């Protein structure tokens, strides 16, 4: 009987295996990267780090990195590869440096709000990997709302940089407001205190009366959105801004 049941067991195992077999996943083979014709010793950022975009969307400016040789001159024809956590898309994924030693890529951030670390890497002559890490900021819905409110109400005084469209009022103020990237200061102020300053104005916390009270103009959820934006862009990052998405 034991002999027979072991045969039956094999049969059952086969049926089991067939029942439990899940659909196989196809992994698409992407094209191989081009061959590097030159090698550098350093990779540096030309532009495009620390940008802010909505979750899942394209960064407003492309990311440009440059490969240099020992004497700091640009290297043309070096292979640069971009990498990040899944969900971040690069267009293109890799490229050979052009005549000015640069590779340009358009980056779409992942679907979660937070900071994304992207890595640009190239190989030196001995095939050792040289890496450059950049950080980009993805804003969720609430932080995007905060960003729009910031542009409408806060930025004119709190951002010292002027643009063609918007002249900064920062230099005109006797007591200088804190730019929202000033993490060293702002990260020490609690959410409750920030809410109080925005709602009741600077004097509420013994700060400048040039900061008016916004409690009758902005709703509670507006103010929450503003704080979530301030936390998202502060540098160094605020603890409440959430995790950093980095590829290990």
């Amino acid at each position, binding site marked *: 009987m034991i002999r027979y*049941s072991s045969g039956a067991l094999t049969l059952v195992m086969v049926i*089991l295996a067939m029942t439990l077999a899940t659909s196989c996943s196809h992994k698409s083979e992407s094209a191989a990267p081009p061959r590097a014709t030159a090698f550098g010793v350093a990779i540096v950022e030309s532009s495009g780090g620390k940008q802010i975009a909505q979750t899942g969307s394209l960064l407003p400016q492309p990311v440009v990195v440059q490969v240099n040789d020992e004497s700091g001159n640009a290297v043309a024809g070096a292979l640069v590869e971009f990498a990040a956590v899944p969900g971040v898309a690069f267009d293109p994924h890799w490229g050979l440096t052009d005549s000015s030693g640069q590779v340009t890529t358009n980056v779409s951030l992942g679907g979660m709000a937070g900071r994304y670390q992207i890595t640009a890497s190239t190989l030196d002559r001995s095939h050792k990997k040289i890496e450059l890490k950049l950080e980009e900021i993805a804003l969720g819905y609430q932080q995007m709302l905060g960003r729009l409110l910031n542009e409408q109400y806060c930025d004119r005084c709190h951002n010292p940089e002027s643009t063609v469209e918007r002249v900064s*009022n920062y230099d005109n103020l006797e007591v200088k407001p804190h730019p929202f990237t000033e993490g060293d200061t702002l990260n020490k102020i609690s959410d409750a205190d920030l809410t109080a300053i925005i709602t009741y104005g600077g004097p509420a916390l013994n700060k400048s009366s*040039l900061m008016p009270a916004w409690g009758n103009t902005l709703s509670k959820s507006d103010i929450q959105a503003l704080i979530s934006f301030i936390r998202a862009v502060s540098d160094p990052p605020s603890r409440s801004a959430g995790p950093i998405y980095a590829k290990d």
Partner: protein
Amino acid sequence: MNEKSTSLWHKLFGDPIRAFGVASLIFLISLAIAPAKNFFSEWRHYQHGYLRMIRNRSDANTLQRRFQGGIQQIWLPELGVVDRCTSCHVGLKEASLADVSEQPFRKHPPIPHNLDQFGCTICHRGQGAATTVAEAHNSTLAWEQPILPAKYIESSCGQCHRGPLPGTPQLNQGRNLLAREGCVHCHTIKLPDGSTMKPADDPPSLSHIADKTTREWIYAWLKDPQAYATTATMPNFKLSDDDARDMSAFLIANSTPVTGDTVTLSAKPSSDPATGPSLYGESFCASCHAVQNAAGNIVGGDVGPEITRIGSKLKPEWLQAWLRNPRNYDPGTGMPHYRFDDPQVATLAGFLEAKTDSDLLANVHLEPPTPEQIAHGKRLVSDYGCASCHEIAGIKKPENFAPELSRIGSKPITQLIFLPGMSHTLPDYIAGKIRQPRAFSPGLKMPQYNFTPGQIDALTTALLALNERSVTLPPSLAVPATPDTDYQPAGKAGKLMTDLACFSCHRINGHGGDMAPDLTWEGSSVQREWLVQFFKNPGTLRPALIRRMPRFNLTDGEVNELTDYIMTVYQNPAIDRDSMPLSGYPQGQVELGKQLFYGKYSCQGCHIVDTKVDKGYIGPTLTHVGSRSTAAWIYQWMKNPQALRPGTIEPNRAMSDEDARALTAFLISQKGGDKREAAKK
């Protein structure tokens, strides 16, 4: 091998009793598989993972108490939602899990809607009833719609919200592009509320084009519109040389002249290199028209066309007639009728004619056309649907020239033809089609647009919102848009305002542009004498704002007509202009107002009253506010600025009546005294 399996068969089923035993065993085991399968299910695995994760947290007790095992489901019969996503996404509603990045345990980021009222798939798509990751997230044979990529998530807001929302910039941009870039000239888009999306661009009529430009320019333009102006809306139809030759021949042959369309002035264009640019600057042409500078940047407004190479396009006689009165050629144009005199027209025309690009037409040499070429050109003009956008005498605007897009967001994937290597999803198909329409088939008529990747994402977002759900939605959930009114001012002043194209920049009663201030309550806001002076010599009220308002060389009669109309008609019902005097406030009240201005309310952070001390660069300069604004307006503004101008950045300070009155007294006393004193000296 065959023998062996036969013997195995014989061993198992040879004897009827043994066969019965084996069959029963198989039956029992397969019965046991069902619960086992349930036991090993994915959602159970994730729920165990969740419990493991929260075990070591400080808030473990609360989280454990709130945890509910088993398959969870949000069921909303009126929306057709059966979402079991919360079976695996266990921590979605746990506020304290904000620091967790591990999926599927992350807290849902804050949104304005309650998850229990809307479920998940309304926004994220995917198969809500599925209980495995593969079936819920991806498209399967039985379910086409995979999870919506995060970058198009705003399209889901657009299913219910038919107007722009502050939190959906991408959707708003996409909808604007659909209207502004001319998509809806060819593609009909019926909106879920039953209306049809209207184009927001204004492609010129081509019925009189020979008055305006040459056949050579038309040829070059047809071949590559962006070579003439990088910001041109006209897409590239990738025409062959012969086709462009024949189409340009037809358009010229088909054109009829309009009386007064071309003039030759007695005045000669000025050769003085300074007068042209200064008149161009004084007339604030750059408020609406852009020019590409040497660095390649586009500088100027986008209300009118870019004029970098305008000299290569326009015939001088037409340009002069246009500058004298544009409404003669195009009664509906957004260009104001400046009251230029002949020497001014000559100067400005001379300046603009010099903006040429010798490369543009250098290689265009066209023989006089044959009748066959003209006939062929006419056929091409109909085939390419030129009349969908442009008015062309003799050619009817085609109906349903391109596929209707009213339900494009629910188009079945089986009806789409994908390019090799492309992922088989609807968003990728739509984006790919916008990016490079002819890649899908060289014979397609859809032209090549010049969109940036961001614009393509925005357009795709807006199109994905046009889906079945947006139509089948319970009407109570739909948030209607507030469409622009078609307000038109009446009478002589109304005609004058149309002639000056006030609505190209200003908004009144829900109609008009957004470049300049809304004038709906202007009559309550300003004093009559100030308005008269402003028309004669406009300036900007804000130190950091570029002035954009042109001077129109109005006659005194015209100024009076406009001023009377604005002062009478554009009044806020809540403000009685004459309820508060413009002077004569007690000195003590003025002093109190001054103290409040510099102390309690610190208005000098944004405004300037005393040019020697104050530096505020945000709000209007207030040195002359006492001769500009009415006291009743200032008082109401102090009380609640947003009630008068929704969205203004002046904060509402919830002032007491006393404070507001004192500030009004102080501000109304600011009548530009400094200047008069300086003049006395």
